């Protein structure tokens, strides 16, 4: 197979032996992991958009539907059958699970996006300063990063939330972002360090390009796939923190998100009353989001690092 392709491609791209390996259709962005991850997320967003158009999202509030109904075709522990009006069933305060998913999924992802963006912006700034300027900046920033990475963020967030009580999603996102800058800073600093002495940077420096322009106009574009991978990883981390806090009972409760739904279901013992649709559906949706993010992350890694590409 591989031999065939090489022979076919060789004349097109110029006739030399190596030309078959590097032809013009060999675009690194056409990476199946990246594309399938992005595809899954895109499809999920499309379904949610469709849901907002076609389904009554007010059903996500409590006491709008009968309680504890399973999806159609199943019976709950009381022997009630599911009804087609609630295709994914309902939970014990009368929220429709389908509406809950439609409303909850984007809210969960939104917190991830906000926390990851704030953390990433700080990370880019500090990472570039530490890596490019070096000296005292580098020492202080590295020390701060080492400390922040060692502290398990969830524990400090628990202490904060124990004081504040339940907070809205935006506050929660900002609290999470207190801890989401350290990993990107560390990662970006390492990348900048490896670029600092490369030829084009020295060329720019000799030509008298201002430091800020070297950092953000010369180096940054080369780091884009790395930054992308780091951003996605950051988003995963933020969503994990958020779901963790919500499962401990800190989420906003009137309009639920996925983690809050899981919290309520654990509180009500849904696991052992076999109400699998209540905790199971949010869990599966979250799992799909995480797998999609991982695929995007791995794809971006391969796009950034050609060595990883060949052996897959």
């Amino acid at each position: 197979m591989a031999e065939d392709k090489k022979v076919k491609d060789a004349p097109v791209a110029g006739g030399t032996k190596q030309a078959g390996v590097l032809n013009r259709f060999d675009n690194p962005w056409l990476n199946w992991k990246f594309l399938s991850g992005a595809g899954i997320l895109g499809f999920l967003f499309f379904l949610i958009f469709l849901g907002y158009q076609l389904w009554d999202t007010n059903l996500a509030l409590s006491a709008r539907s009968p309680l504890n109904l399973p999806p159609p075709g199943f019976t709950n522990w009381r022997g009630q059958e599911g009804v087609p009006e609630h295709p994914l069933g309902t939970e014990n305060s009368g929220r429709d699970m389908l509406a809950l998913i439609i409303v909850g999924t984007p809210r969960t992802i939104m917190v991830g996006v906000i926390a990851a963006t704030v953390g990433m912006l700080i990370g880019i700034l500090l990472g570039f300063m530490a890596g490019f300027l070096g000296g005292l900046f580098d020492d202080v920033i590295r020390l701060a990063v080492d400390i922040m990475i060692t502290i398990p963020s969830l524990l400090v967030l628990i202490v904060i939330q124990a004081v504040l009580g339940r907070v809205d999603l935006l506050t929660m996102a900002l609290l999470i972002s207190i801890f989401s800058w350290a990993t990107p800073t560390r990662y970006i600093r390492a990348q900048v360090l490896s670029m600092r002495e490369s030829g084009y940077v020295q060329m720019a420096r000799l030509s008298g390009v201002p430091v800020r322009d070297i950092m953000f106009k010369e180096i940054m574009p080369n780091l884009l796939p790395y930054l992308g991978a780091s951003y996605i990883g950051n988003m995963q981390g933020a969503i994990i923190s958020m779901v963790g806090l919500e499962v401990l009972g800190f989420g906003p409760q009137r309009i639920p998100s996925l983690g809050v739904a899981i919290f309520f279901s654990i509180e009500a013992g849904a696991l052992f009353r076999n109400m699998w649709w209540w905790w199971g559906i949010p869990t599966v949706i979250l799992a799909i989001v995480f797998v999609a993010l991982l695929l995007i992350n791995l794809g971006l890694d391969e796009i950034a690092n050609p060595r990883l590409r060949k052996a897959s």
Partner: protein
Amino acid sequence: MGAFSLNYLVRRLLVFFLTLWVAATLIFIIPRLAPGDPITAMVARLTQQAGFVENADLIIEGWRERFGLNDPVYVQYLRYLTGLLQGDLGYSLARFPSTVSELVGRALPWTLGLVGVATLIFFSVGNLCGALLAWGKTPRLVKVMIPMSMIFTSIPPLLAGLLIVYVFGFLIPIFPQAYAYDYNFARPELTLEFFANVLYHGFLPAMSIVLVTFGYWALGMRGMMITIEGEDYMILAQAKGLKPFYVLYRYMIRNAILPQMTALAVSIGTLVNGVVLVEVIFSYNGMGTLIFTALREQDFGLIQGTSFILITTSALAVLIIDLSYPLIDPRISLEGR
């Protein structure tokens, strides 16, 4: 061997003690940043729950005096820090006669055991899988099987725990759903039977961590192995006609494992986050469950104490990994000379 460069040692110790200080300070400051003081906030919350608290003002004043909240902040801070240095974490408010140190002392060994065993498993299995994925002589079947077993990677341990306890604790009830040991045992004892019971109970929680974590290490290891395969000394090793297993172990894994150790130190914080939540799902008798019940009971002293001890433990684990690093990579001891 053994001779660290002084620079390395000093820097690690500095990070360790600064981490403890930052954590202690955060835990001291956070409650004081909230409007009102912790006591007023607590009484307000009691009022919210009970509807009405008799003589709330007197209670607040009494407690303020008792906890020294009328002193200037820096006096409180110094007293708090010296207390911590002496291992005094104060009293649990909800289970009054018990001190926080007592409760933590009972819970910490369980968490350490769970994290330790899980880390041992996912680190060795993950790295082995990663090495096999990149190695040229791995059977094709294994190369297909390993990626398939990695589908759970990146799902938080909490969600994996939910799925696992449902499947193996409820649908097919072959493992216990909760607790670290059967309550037939009045207290932990040093018998084989008890030990077996602990392993039996710990299996599902440990699995929830391992299943979602080892793939991450396998991926990292694979990346390192691929980099190493391109090195010149690999061609030399082949040219010498060394046995493939010898090359795999001595030339590839031993080099590739070094960055993995660094990565392990970095990931301890995330790991502890996951374990806390897994313990909540399984009602495991460790620190996670302790913090969860403390949240339930609004036992602020216990929340602070548990958090601080867990942070200290994580920092200690990182320090140990960092200090053992020069032992497996002799190059580090030369750094900075």
